[in-house]
């Protein structure tokens, strides 16, 4: 057996992670703030999250280990940068001719919302995959005001309203490809359109009539565990419900709804793990070099990934980046 096989996409102790950093590996790390803060400077970026789904075992909340994705065996060079609200739109102008950009943004901060609304119009967006995740926190602590943090390992700095990016280059003849697996299917019974790009919806158009979305959901007992889905010519893009605001008769989402797109409620799924297994069978038969994957915290919670194994290991997210911001979507990067 090859003892030098790359350890990647798994939970490791802080001591093991420190060793990988000191060896110069190019890493993406997910874990608790107090663990990431103690790591030495090096070629890594990180974001806070303590929930992980794990291959061969049930997922769990883990505040003692760090989830490591090690790109070192696949890339030829890398560069780490921090972006703020003013220059985040340049993210795809930097980096390398052939490679990918791995981005981590902090949840529900201005830069997250800016990215969600404006990423579709970023220059050179589709030249190379823009993949990544939205950092979060323990949900109890997050609801009490704890901030998500992102880390630029090269400088040792931690941020709560900036984005960190690892720009990576690939050898000639190799190409990075970003794909998604969405287990949810739209239910065409109700079509929903919004009058402007927005995270918060009151009045909207449902089946051609003006309706208050909040009241409609209550009246029709719509299960907001499931996302809204828009169909982008076959790419089904989810937007997750954050909460219903009864006082203001508004619905708040984790991502923006865009004017001009038609959204649908999702068909209920009996078991996320089972639906995922069915979907993954066909998708994965053609993939042989998957180097990163992540899945949404809502799929972890509603799909009970702490009691199920979906055959992959990865960090959960408060949103996934696949060029644009996605919700409730398994996202992966592969090398052809």
């Amino acid at each position: 057996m090859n003892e030098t096989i790359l350890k990647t996409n798994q939970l490791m102790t802080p001591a093991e992670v420190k060793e990988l950093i000191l060896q110069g590996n190019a890493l993406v790390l997910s874990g608790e703030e107090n663990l990431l803060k103690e790591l030495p400077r090096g070629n890594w970026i990180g974001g806070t999250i303590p929930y992980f789904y794990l291959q061969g075992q049930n997922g769990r909340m883990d505040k003692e280990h760090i989830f490591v994705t090690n790109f070192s065996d696949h890339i030829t060079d890398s560069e780490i940068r921090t972006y703020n609200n003013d220059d985040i739109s340049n993210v795809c102008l930097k980096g390398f001719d052939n490679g990918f950009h791995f981005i981590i943004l902090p949840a529900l901060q201005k830069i997250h919302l800016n990215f969600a609304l404006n990423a579709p119009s970023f220059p050179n967006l589709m030249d190379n995959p823009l993949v990544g995740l939205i950092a979060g926190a323990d949900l109890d602590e997050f609801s009490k005001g704890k901030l998500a943090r992102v880390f630029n390992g090269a400088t040792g700095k931690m941020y709560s309203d900036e984005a960190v990016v690892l720009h990576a280059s690939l050898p000639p003849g190799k190409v990075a490809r970003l794909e998604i697996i969405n287990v949810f299917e739209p239910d065409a019974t109700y079509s929903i359109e919004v009058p402007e790009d927005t995270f918060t919806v009151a009045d909207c158009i449902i089946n051609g009539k003006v309706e208050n979305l909040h009241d409609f959901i209550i009246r029709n007992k719509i299960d907001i565990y499931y996302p809204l889905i828009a169909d982008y010519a076959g790419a089904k893009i989810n937007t997750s419900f954050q909460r219903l605001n009864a006082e203001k008769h508004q619905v708040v989402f984790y991502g923006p709804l865009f004017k001009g797109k038609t959204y649908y409620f999702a068909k209920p799924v009996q078991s996320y793990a089972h639906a995922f297994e069915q979907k993954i069978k066909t998708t994965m038969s053609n993939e042989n070099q998957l180097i990163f994957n992540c899945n949404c915290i809502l799929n972890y919670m509603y799909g009970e990934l702490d009691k199920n194994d979906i055959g992959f290991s990865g960090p959960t997210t408060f949103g996934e980046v696949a060029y644009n911001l996605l919700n409730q979507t398994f996202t992966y990067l592969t090398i052809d």
Partner: protein
Amino acid sequence: MEKEQVYSIPPKDRQEWKMLVTSKIEHRFQNFVLQMKSAEYSSKIAQGNMSVDQAIDEIYSLCEKYNKAVQLDFKKIFNNW
């Protein structure tokens, strides 16, 4: 040493490219980027914001890049080339 397999793509003058970007062929690519972009092309062309030739250049270039991943799509769209 492992030999890299080379995947070919259909010539740019095949009519199917034009039919793809104008949605005369309604094909759902397996690849995420191509799904997103193919929708964008037909919409931009319809609005007069992009020429058919520009759209063909772009989609051709993307398919060149992801030549391995699009082989099954090509079999359905072009049959042979």
